């Protein structure tokens, strides 16, 4: 039975409004740490894939030598997560990720007339909009109170914070999966073709964002199978029309479930067809063996870390309650419990066996979509709406109301019910307020982000004592509020103890989670602002369309998305580097496509002298097509450069310039320094000095990284 259906419309609507208000607050909070920049290699795959799609209707790169439209350029920068296209071995690369997210990025690029900034807002918006979906899902099982607490727990999960400002697949994935499931649950309870189609499409679309979400077909299948049976229960029988004759009845019973599955299958089939057509494989991971990288050997390595990370970093304090919820609710309402089980566990189980399992968020992010059903279990099992925990047998029970005074009893119950709702609402608000104080202090810390020039000023605003004070005040304010409300609850009804206990545990979870979340948000803010400052400086000096050589691959990951420069890492002109690329395809899963290494090796095999010549040829080709050529180099310290400039000497020369340009016996190209600047370096010392001080901390390090830009011109 849908627990939320027992609530009044006013409560339900108020809860929904509160959920959206909290979602907006969450968005504002996380936006304080947001910058439209990311230098990750995964993110390059999604973003550049989207950009390519917006231009060519394919997420594909065809790097060709400048001036020659078809000749493969093996030196052009292609990030690590791109795989060689099976049908076009010669000269193209595709992201190994499914097309769903690049397609959304392409839509945003189209919508913003070619601008790239909008794409970075997709994840924060998707994550914020996921919160009401979590509320709706959890409310189905434990009422509005549980829904709000579950939503708060999800919003303050460190995992959510780590992913909210990250333009990879997880925020969008959890958005589509959770809203899809919310729609499916709604269809389950009230029926309707629109809900079946909507739910199926969204859940199916999540599989086009992350392949592993294809497992979400399991709860859909279960819902499709079970729901017709559910309609025959006494509760539901009153809600449906009298049964029509047999053929019509069968059609009616199975039509909507089939519609649900068909809606799910539509995007999935489209994805499979697309992959087979373009890549020649069912998934982009096939060529790296990652789609078969599951096994017991990995499980034995992963289980402890997965369980620990999920219990501490994913659902802080809530995982055991979710397990208890499963215990309590599965025998009581197996149909809906199995639906949640099939939503939560296959994905969790799958990644327990996966080869790629780095400790921390690196592993946990894979199972983001399992968090909402686990929270649903936690609050379903906790709250009286989900089945009150039995009173010990010895305790006296309240006498049953007699039929003689129905009005008095009814009034009394209604008054108490209203009071309980009021008190619980206040309690939720207190929990939210506690989290809000943390948010306030975090935002205050970051309020003046618009005046962050120079970056040093910002970095000097390191986490300080008042933040900690804020968190502490929030925590204790919450505790005091909880105790006060607990007293009120106890006065209202002794049955409210589980409500109070659930609230207290959630309060601890929310407070601790918010404190840890701030770490991830800060970390993201430090990183992205450092990169933003670097990229802005580069773009001010290197015009769009120019050729840029830069060994800093993370920077290239970002620049490839936001600029139209021809990018080269320059490392492929070094024979030793080329020889070190993975080429042989074994059965072991690997991150990088070995075919790419082989292709590179085949294309540029030769001695170093030949590679040197290729470097010069590449530069000449760019110059011949009227592109300017720049070399960007980062060095750890600006001191040697400063000293040289003081002595009016040339100073350190970028490796690329020294080896391939000025080092030539017959130089026809010359290089000169255009500019140099420094950027404060941010160091995350989260792992410093084990075993002491393992609490993750962000500490800006005021050593600077020096960048210098050289321009190469014809001599």
């Amino acid at each position, binding site marked *: 039975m849908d627990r939320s259906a027992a609530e009044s419309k006013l409560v339900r609507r108020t809860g929904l409004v509160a959920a959206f208000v909290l979602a907006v607050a969450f968005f504002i909070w996380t936006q304080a740490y947001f910058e439209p920049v990311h230098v990750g290699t995964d993110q390059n795959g999604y973003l550049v894939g989207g950009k390519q799609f917006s231009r060519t209707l394919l997420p594909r790169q065809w790097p060709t030598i400048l001036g020659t439209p078809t000749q493969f350029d093996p030196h052009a920068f292609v990030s690590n997560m791109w795989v060689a296209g099976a049908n076009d071995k010669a000269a193209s690369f595709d992201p190994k990720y499914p097309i769903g997210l690049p397609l959304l990025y392409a839509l945003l690029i189209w919508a913003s007339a070619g601008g790239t900034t909008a794409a970075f807002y997709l994840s924060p918006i998707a994550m914020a909009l996921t919160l009401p979906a979590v509320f709706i899902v959890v409310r189905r099982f434990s009422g509005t109170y549980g829904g709000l607490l579950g939503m708060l727990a999800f919003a303050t999960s460190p995992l959510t914070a780590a992913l909210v400002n990250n333009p990879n697949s997880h925020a969008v994935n959890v958005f589509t999966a959770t809203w899809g499931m919310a729609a499916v649950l709604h269809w389950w309870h009230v029926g309707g073709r629109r809900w079946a189609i909507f739910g199926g499409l969204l859940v199916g679309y999540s599989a086009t964002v992350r392949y592993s979400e294809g497992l979400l077909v399991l709860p859909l299948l279960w819902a499709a199978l079970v729901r017709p049976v559910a309609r025959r229960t006494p509760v539901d029988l009153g809600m449906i029309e009298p049964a029509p004759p047999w053929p019509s009845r069968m059609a009616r019973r199975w039509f909507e479930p089939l519609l649900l599955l068909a809606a799910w299958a539509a995007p999935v089939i489209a994805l499979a067809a697309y992959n087979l057509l373009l890549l020649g494989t069912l998934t982009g991971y096939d060529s790296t063996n990652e789609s078969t990288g599951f096994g017991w050997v990995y499980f034995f390595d992963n289980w402890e870390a997965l369980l*620990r990370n999920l219990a501490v970093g994913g659902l802080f304090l809530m995982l055991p309650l979710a397990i208890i919820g499963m215990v309590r609710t599965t025998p009581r309402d197996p149909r809906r419990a199995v639906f949640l089980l099939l939503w939560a566990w296959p994905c969790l189980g799958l990644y327990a066996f996966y080869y790629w399992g780095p400790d921390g968020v690196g592993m946990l992010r894979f199972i983001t979509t399992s968090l909402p059903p686990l929270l649903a279990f936690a609050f379903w099992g906790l709250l009286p709406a989900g089945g009150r925990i039995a009173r010990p047998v010895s305790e006296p029970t309240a006498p049953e109301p007699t039929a003689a005074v129905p009005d008095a009893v009814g009034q009394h119950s209604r008054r108490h019910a209203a009071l309980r709702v009021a008190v619980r609402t206040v309690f939720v608000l207190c929990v939210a307020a506690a989290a809000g104080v943390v948010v306030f202090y975090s935002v205050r810390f970051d309020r003046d982000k618009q005046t962050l020039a120079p970056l040093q000023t910002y970095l000097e605003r390191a986490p300080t004592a008042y933040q900690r004070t804020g968190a502490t005040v929030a925590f204790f304010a919450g505790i005091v509020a909880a105790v006060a409300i607990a007293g009120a609850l106890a006065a209202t009804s002794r049955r409210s103890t589980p409500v109070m206990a659930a609230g207290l*545990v959630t309060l601890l979870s929310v407070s601790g989670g918010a404190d840890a979340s701030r770490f991830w948000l800060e970390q993201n803010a430090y990183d992205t602002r450092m990169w933003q400052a670097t990229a802005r400086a580069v773009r001010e000096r290197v015009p769009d369309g120019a050729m840029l050589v830069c060994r800093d691959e993370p920077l290239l990951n970002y620049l490839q998305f936001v600029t139209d420069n021809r990018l080269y890492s320059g490392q492929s002109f070094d024979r030793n580097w080329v020889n070190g690329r993975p080429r042989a395809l074994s059965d072991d899963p690997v991150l990088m496509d070995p075919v790419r290494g082989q292709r590179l090796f085949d294309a540029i095999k030769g001695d170093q002298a030949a590679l040197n010549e290729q470097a010069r040829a590449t530069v000449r080709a760019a110059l011949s097509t009227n592109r300017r050529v720049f070399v960007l180099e980062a060095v750890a310290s600006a001191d040697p450069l400063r000293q040289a400039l003081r002595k009016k000497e040339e100073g350190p020369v970028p490796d690329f310039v020294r080896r391939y340009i000025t080092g030539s016996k017959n130089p026809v190209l010359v290089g000169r320094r255009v500019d140099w600047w420094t950027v404060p370096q941010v160091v995350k010392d989260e792992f410093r000095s084990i075993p002491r001080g393992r609490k993750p901390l962000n500490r800006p390090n005021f050593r600077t990284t020096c960048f210098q830009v050289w321009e190469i011109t014809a001599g």
Partner: protein
Amino acid sequence: MERVSLIDYMPPGEGIRPLFKPLPAFRTESAETRGHRAVAAALAFAIAVAYFLLVLQYWAPAHSGVDQNGYLVGGKQLAWTGSTGLKPAEPLGFVSSMWVLNEKTGVSYPKYPVGLPLLYAIVLWTCGSVGPKAAFLISPVTAATAVLGMYFLTRRFAGAFASLMAMLVMAFGQVMLVLANNPNSHASCLAFCVWGVFLLIRFWETGTLWRGVTAGFLLGFAATIRYTEGLLALLIAFTFVGMVDWRSGRSWLRCLTPTLGWLIPVAYLVGFNLIAMGTITGYDTTNESVPGSAFTLEHMGLNWEKLVRQVHDTGLFFTLPLGLLGMGLALRSGVRRGTLLWLWLVPGTLTYMAYYWAPERGVSYLRFFLTLMPPIVVGVGVLIDQLVSAASVARLPRVVTPVACGLVVAVACSMSLYRGLFGLDEGQETGIGLESQFRQQVNLAALGDVVTQTAPAGSVLIAPVQQLNALQFIGDYDCFSTETFTAAYATRLNAQKTNRDPDDPDPIQPARRNFLLKQIDGKNDDQLAQEQIGIVSRALSAGRRAFILCRRDQTAAFTKRYEAKSLDLTWKPIAFYNDLPRLQPPTDRPPSTDPRARGGPNRPRPGGPGGPGRGGRGNFAGREVTAQAWQLIEIKRRAG
């Protein structure tokens, strides 16, 4: 119920009035038959015995810890002299770091309370020559006793099945496992707390005098093992308030019996401290007991998140939220009984949350909270009990629920056991696992045997600090630390003195530091070597023997001092010991300082992708095998 036969009545004429207000029953035991209860109790005993045997597999009669030295040597002194005080014959004689100096008398005392040393002294008095080894059994025995006590304590709140589950959760917690073999205060203190509170509840239920006195005494004795357990007096006070009939003097007397029992050990402790050290606690002179310095709200702000995270992760993995929920439910079923749990948990937690010493090391920090875990574990029992009760109406839930609860407990226990065995802390292997601790202590015990069999009592023994911490207890020697006779030590002490605010809490007593500095400050290595030679010469002149214990690869650093021709001393190795090979965990990959690392905030871990080597625990690839070789060198006069 015993209550009927235990209620006294006022004299005739004043009407029938009970002498106390008994604690309302939490649940009737009629739901469980006598046979049922007997079987459960037998099971609890069996589990406690099995737990003791398990812990014993990792037991060794030695420990190199500095805290442990305080307790053990304090106990030895108490057994021999009636006081824990120690005053070496030579000013540079070894006194470990956790001792505080009474500047008036020149005697040093462990800064810890006298309770645990008293237990060690009792063992030494009663066990004769095996006393020094038997003393190390106190922690495992009391740990198993505490585990058994958890069963009986939880029975006051829940049924047999839930109590057995709670017992297992407590027993296999990582902190409990690691401390069960450790001769410091935590295991024994836990036992006194658990049994004390159990008896206190029974006293409230029955009003029996012996229970009241014993409960008070046990809780008071817990305070003589760890000062902070004095907070359990709140439970006694709450019990008094809850059960006393304010109008009856006899009721007052009866209800005060736990207080009287509590006062006996506490008065002894305070009296001893005042007489011996001149302060109420041993921590007073280190500023570690001063509110506003050692305990501050600022510390609370810094520590709360760390505490919750560590208790959830390391202390009571998987069961903390269940326990808190259960404690809430316990309030519903009986406010007074439930309040006892919260009164036990909250004041102690807040106290240690406000404490200055809060390292980010799981067990090192959480050991303070070991005695605060029982109320949470009882909460786990309450929750399981209520889940099982609620499920008993239908057939399927009746079967599934206990099995599922058992599985949850199994997950928590197996994870903690796995971590405890290998000393895993946030996925990283540390040296505090049962296996590595066992190997370390076995080596130390064997080394102690070698030394005690070779060097006669009364000899001078110069050895490294860690070994000396143990040998000072195991043997009867004039001990000197090798590091004391180095200029680097004086430099270190000076640095500590300079860098610390005298009003800040300081683990090492400033007065003792000053005393040591007075002896060695300003002297170079040669002068300090001469001090050492002088000590040895005086001992030899007095007819005693002198020994140096050192690693073979460091022998030259010590022996060359005695090779000068001007000296009439010579040296000769006379006993050897090779440590069992030690397998070091693989060195962690150096932390990445590059914020551009792939995949965002990942941390490599041993055995995992991105970490150094795959293979998990039990695969020793990449580990360094080390085995230290020790030798005992005797210093003698040259012949002729």
